[in-house]
């Protein structure tokens, strides 16, 4: 038995002891070993690590529910957590919609694991940073290299007891010249896959190609979005579109059964076999679910509570403390074009285009824009998912299939579902890149996308 599962089991037992045998309890324990080496102005300026064990308890007693968490996992700390959570529950009004506990069910696997990544040293990360800096050839650089490993366990009073562990490495950096940035980033389960030199060279090539940008008039342009930009669409779809609570309350655009997207779009949530724990915050085993198949919306993500309300079953997307926000898919894959190619990684291309896969999409564009990244995107209306934000890290004009000139950043105001509506997707890449989330260990997988129209509403300079 793992230390984490032992802790979770002790908490469930304590709930029985303190609140009685009828109390329902679920305990999730996560050990996180996180290290991040950050660089700016081409030197390491922040270098951090922490090891934390956190415990989250939710219990349902006498028809009432409360939750609590703690990093104090001594005997005294565990007892204190249980006692105050039981006391809090008893002061709450009845929870009529309590969906009950996850019943015993096995997880699909232990999660991905790589010993070298889990045991990576500060020197291992610093070496990759040095490679990135050197490959940028004298350009200013900034970014991070991080490694994270975590071991989790979940136990509840219905007998569910599952464990898993996972390791992750990510690198994300910019190279800068004259205030113009180029970017490269990658997420992987193995630190050995991260080549700082490749990423640094890519960022520098993009920065150099972005020099002397011209200002173009706002308006609707055809676009090729690199995977780094497509990730923003996936993130907003996850938070606001395929969120089971938003769907139940009619705040989401999602309409299962309707052909809301272009037939080229197939979107799945798939935590298995890549990065992350194989169960959610309620102990429900994770599985692959198809949210959109060939343009048709199929389902949304549910936890136990949103599923009960919708007359469905949990899809394994409960997030800790997520009762207010809802159930969110955090491992989205936009599937690449599988009609050709064998899924092997494309080759690097000189200049602003990341790789041969994106270059193939650009070849068909008569006049449009190549966009690297979206930045500071915010929802103007969650139902129509109209979003404003800016481009970042490089925009280029594409004419007759060739990148012709760098362009100043734009502000856009665009409905994301509308941009991917039937007939709007002119091309989809044959290779999906695994990319990290800025804030934690979520990940997203996306190919490049060629879209018929994107609504740029202003130049970033005025």
């Amino acid at each position, binding site marked *: 038995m793992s230390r984490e599962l032992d802790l979770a089991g002790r908490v469930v037992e304590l709930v029985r002891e303190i609140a009685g045998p009828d109390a329902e309890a679920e305990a999730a324990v996560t050990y996180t070993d996180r*290290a991040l080496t950050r660089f*700016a*102005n*081409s030197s*390491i*300026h*922040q*270098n*951090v*690590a*922490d*090891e*934390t*064990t956190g415990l989250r308890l939710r219990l349902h007693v006498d028809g009432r529910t*409360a*939750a*609590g*968490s*703690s*990093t*104090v996992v001594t005997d005294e700390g565990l007892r204190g957590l249980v006692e105050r959570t039981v006391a*809090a529950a008893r*002061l*709450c*009004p009845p929870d009529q919609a309590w969906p009950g506990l996850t019943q015993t069910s096995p997880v699909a696997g232990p999660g991905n694991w790589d010993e070298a990544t889990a045991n990576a040293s*500060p020197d291992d990360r*610093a*070496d990759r940073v040095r490679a990135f800096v050197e490959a940028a050839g004298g350009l200013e650089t*900034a*970014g*991070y290299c*991080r490694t994270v490993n975590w071991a989790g366990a979940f136990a509840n009073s219905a007998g569910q007891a599952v464990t898993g562990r996972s390791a992750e490495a990510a690198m*994300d950096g*910019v190279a800068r010249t004259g205030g113009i*940035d180029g970017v490269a980033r990658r997420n992987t389960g193995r630190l050995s896959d991260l080549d700082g030199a490749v990423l640094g060279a890519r960022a520098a090539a993009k920065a150099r190609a972005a020099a002397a940008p011209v200002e173009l008039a706002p308006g609707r342009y055809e676009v090729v979005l690199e995977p780094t930009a497509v990730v923003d669409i996936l993130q907003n779809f996850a938070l606001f579109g395929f969120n089971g609570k938003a769907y139940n*309350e009619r*705040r989401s655009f999602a309409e299962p059964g309707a052909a809301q997207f272009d037939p080229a779009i197939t979107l799945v949530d798939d935590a298995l076999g890549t990065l992350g724990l194989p169960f959610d915050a309620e102990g429900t085993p994770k599985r692959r679910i198809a949210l959109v198949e060939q343009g048709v919306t199929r389902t949304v993500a549910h936890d136990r509570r949103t599923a009960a309300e919708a007359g469905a079953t949990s899809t394994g997307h409960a997030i800790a403390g997520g*009762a*207010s926000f809802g159930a969110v898919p955090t491992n989205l894959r936009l599937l690449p074009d599988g009609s050709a190619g064998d899924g092997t990684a494309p080759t690097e291309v000189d200049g602003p285009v990341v790789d041969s896969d994106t270059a193939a999409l650009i070849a068909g564009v008569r006049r449009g824009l190549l966009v690297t990244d979206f*930045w*500071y*995107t*915010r*929802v*103007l*209306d*969650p*139902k*129509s998912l*109209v979003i*404003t934000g*800016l481009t970042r890290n490089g925009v280029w004009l594409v004419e007759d299939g060739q990148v012709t000139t760098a362009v100043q950043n734009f*502000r856009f*105001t*665009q409905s994301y579902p509308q941009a991917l509506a039937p007939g709007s997707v002119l091309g989809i890449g044959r290779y999906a890149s695994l990319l990290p989330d*800025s*804030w934690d260990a979520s990940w997203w997988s996306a190919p490049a996308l060629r879209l018929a129209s994107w609504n740029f*509403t202003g130049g970033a*300079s*005025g």
Partner: protein
Amino acid sequence: MTHFDVATAAVQAALDAGARYADARVMHRRYESMSARNGEIEELSQDEDAGIGVRALVGSSWGFFAVPDLSDAAARTAGTRAARIAKASARVPGPAVDLVPTGGQSGSWASACAVDPLSVALSDKGDLLVHATKISHENGADVAEGLYQIWDTSKWFVSSEGHRIDQHVRECGAGISATVIGDGETQRRSYPSYRGQYGTSGWELVDSLDLGAHAARIAQEARELLTAPMCPSGETTLILGGEQLALQIHESVGHAIELDRILGWEAAFAGTSWLDLTQLGQLRYGSELMNITIDPTIPGALGSFGFDDEGTPATKRDAVREGRWVGVLAGRDSAAVAGLDYAGSVRSDGWSRLPMVRMTNVGLEPGPHTLDEIIDATDDGILMDINRSWSIDDKRLNFQFGCEVGWEIKNGRRGRMLRNPTYTGIGPQFWRSMDMLSGETVAWGTPNCGKGQPGQVGHTGHPAAPARFTNVRVGVRG
């Protein structure tokens, strides 16, 4: 062992491992939140978090390590590991690191608190949210939400320069919102702002909000918005309510004057700043009505403290005086790099995170008018209030904000309600167009400021009052 003893052991271990400077923070935080929806409690959570974070400077390289274990052995290991990480940083070295002097500060500080928010009965707190959201739901809200949050944080700071400081900060706040679902869109009204109002205060802050008294109004206004005319597109005179202006200050001034951004330390993620240190003291940031202060000493404001997380005592200073840029938010190392002689704006969101440059209370000093006087003096314009969306570029220049509600202003009178109001602009151009400012200042609290990697959530305060701006582009459409 006391928490000071634990921190001292960690610092000594870092020094023994080769650090020329080290500091350690022991933090213990209790957090409580409750949310309600449509008259029912939705979630109650009580969280406890404790640990130690150690920062070590070896040569000119930093390292930081944190653990939740407050034993002597764990603290010593943390100090040693922080020094080891610092040594690895030297594989990609930077320029020499100095720290502007603060003296070996000793002291204690506690935020003012009349009613301990954690001691208020859960049933009373629940009744408050249930009552307000029930009224809102009954008055037309499809989704009526209410939320309160409480943070009770104790910290003990020790440095190798002789700092020995303990602080007890109590923060809380609450808010309600009403969302209505229309045909393909949603509308929302909130009180007192979309995320609520927060401060370094006791429960008296929440009591003063009187959430229930506003619950029916916001639901009715949200429903009215579904059929209100769209905000027109074009350039006009714009009057902003104080809550929206607080966010405008946060995004287009507060982040822009963060010295770590100006120096490029946040270039890859949070971004840089349009400000250039060679222009400090000369640059015209806004109109002469624009006086922005950095003031962590404001009683009750969310960005208040006695000492920052490097042990620098809280001090008020100017950021913009009569429209001219004169000051930055700085830490001890960033200030030394920039050749400045002050720090005092470094904080972290917990023991496991590295302290970094953060806004304290960055606010606009009051002006001579009232909101009614500003409206009276406006022939043709739009009044916008309560933030709905916010976006700004990585240099903090180009912004677009959406508000929950707008009103036409015609011939000095407030007219029809307007739907989906947005405005956009460039920071310094916008601030230079401010021509009227009210004195009805409120120190708005922002409890969700994201920055740093690994990500940190900061608590900031923004004194602001309604103000008027000329020739602003409004009504950007998607």
